């Protein structure tokens, strides 16, 4: 049986960051199924593609990262998608809010692509 590549949906309203995340994901040997610019599109993409992992920016138009997170957790069909939240906010209250909304991981912006690649690769191995 051929190994299914670890699949990812990316959402960030800043195109450059979106690309940066996509590059890191590919470098880690994972497959980007969709890269979108707002929360509503992210939720659609997750529902359509059923990725293994969703990398979501917290502050996005339409639905923010935490709203998407809650919607995903509330949806039985896609409830098991792993979620990594990205945030430019540094305070711990934001982290806690992200975790409460059902995210699995949290990464602060600016992030190091190198570290993200390492983290994704480890996650892929663990799977």
């Amino acid at each position, binding site marked *: 049986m051929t190994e299914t590549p670890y699949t990812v949906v990316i959402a960030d309203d800043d195109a*450059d960051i979106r690309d940066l995340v996509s590059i890191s994901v590919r470098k880690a040997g994972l497959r980007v199924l969709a890269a979108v610019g707002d929360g509503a599109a992210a939720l659609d993409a997750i529902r359509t593609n059923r990725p293994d992992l969703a990398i979501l920016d917290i502050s996005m138009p339409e639905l923010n990262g935490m709203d998407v997170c809650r919607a995903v957790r509330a949806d039985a069909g896609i409830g098991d998608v792993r979620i990594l939240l990205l945030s430019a906010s540094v*305070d711990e209250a934001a982290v806690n809010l992200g975790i409460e909304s059902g995210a699995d991981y949290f990464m602060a*912006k*600016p992030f*190091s*692509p190198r570290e993200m690649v390492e983290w994704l690769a480890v996650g892929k191995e663990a799977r």
Partner: protein
Amino acid sequence: MTTLITTIRTVVGDALDRPSPLVKQSATVIGVGLALILLVAVPELTVTHGPSFWSSLVVIALATALAALMGRDRSFAKYVMIIPAIDVIGLGLFRAGTGGPSSLFASLIILPVVWLASGDGRRFIAYAIAGTSLSLVMPQLLGIVPNVSAIDWLRGLFTPVVFGLAAAIINELSRQSRAQIQSIKRLADDKETMLQRTVEYAAQLQDSEAKFRAADRMFRGVWAAVTEQSVIGTDQEGLIDAWNPGATKLLGPTADDAEDRMHIFDFHLPEELEAYAKELNYPPGETVLNPGFSALVENARLGKAESREWTYVRSDGTHVPVQLSVTRRLTETGETRGYLFVASDVTQAREVARLKDEFVGLISHELRTPLSSVLGYLELMRDDRENPLSEEQLQYLGVAERNAHRLLRLVGDLLFTAQVESGTFLLTDARDIELGPLVTASAESARPAADAAGITLEVGIPDAPAIVTGDPVRLAQAVDNLVSNAIKFTQRGGTVSIALHASAREATITVRDTGMGIAAEELDQLFSRFFRASTATRNAVPGVGLGLTITKAIVTAHGGQMDVESDEGVGTCFTMSLPIATPADVE
């Protein structure tokens, strides 16, 4: 008023000086005049001795002239008694010239004798007796009486004695009269003094009234001019009795609507008053009729100044946040008779503060996103194994990265201070931290910078552990800030000493430098956001004025305290005190 005093003085003075010598003398003159008329009219009456008669007239005329003179010139007043004395002699001569012992006019002598007897002092009785005696024996003395009998000599003694008795009575009466006049004079003087004082009081009264009017005008002016603050006065129960235009502007009702009709607590949010009353432990009940109002004036009642935020409720039901100062109003005897409530509308101030924080937050956020891209892509470039960069390119990349990080730190600091100012910075991840290694790490990370700047770095850490509760990352940031500041503000060859001390209750970290120092008048503002000491700007030391604000916020959040001592040109010493986690751990 002054005119009145002069009038009184004139009236009283005249009464006391009257009758004048001339008036007194007129009795004698009239008496002699009548005698002369009788001498002409009655043939039986004749001049018996010419020389005596004519000289008597001359003597009396002389006395009259003297009287007229003395009446005009007061300086001879004390010699006035010479006049009746001369009269007595003159009348003695007159009697001698008109028949001697048998003269009809002997009785005229009584006139000057009465005057003489009225003199001030008993001696004038003797003078009266002597004068009478002398004038009665005048004919014998002059030798114009041929047969001098013993009766004649006796008359010269007996009549004077009788006259003397009369003189004594007159003397006593005039003494009493003089005493009366004296007391009247004293009364007049007293009256004058009182009047004088009254005049002065009246002037003073007028003066204070003018001052009072000026003060009143000033007060009314100020009262009406204060339109941006609501100033409300109440009695002890909170009933409004003063209401300025500012209160009308802020709350709606006019002074006529509010004064004596409404209470101060009608304009407060009841929930807020209740909450504060609970905080102060005021149970509603018999002892405290209105717990909300009592809470509102609690501090003012105790004579303490209090200023805090409250919500006023306008007459149309809308709310307005105010900064309210409550003070008590005192009676003249120092008892509380009511309260003054001075409130400023802080809607705008709050909005500005909110916008400022929002703005800083937004800007920081907007800066972080592009910085994330910059840093991320720079790193991709550095890590690109397929197209490795040359040494030179790597060096350029390093500069770009270093500056991007510098910007990122600044943005982080801005965000952090915005959180501190808006009160959203809280210690969420507190744990026990040993300060020794933390301080050592800070010093070691600063050593390269110190070496490069030619500054000696001294570190003193005690052997015993000093443990506090807190956020290690933030505390390290606070110490780092102090150490890097000290290095930045110290010239080559200087020294920066970092020391940790621990007592049973608190740990102190001191960072002392031999730098340029801070002006004494700037020490108060040192911890304000964006404040930069004049020594810093003058010496072109880079920075934006956030480091100490952050340091202080971190220390405050840990329940600690920041202190600074500085001597311009000598150096500065920052002391950070933090409460020890569990005193038992420290030994």
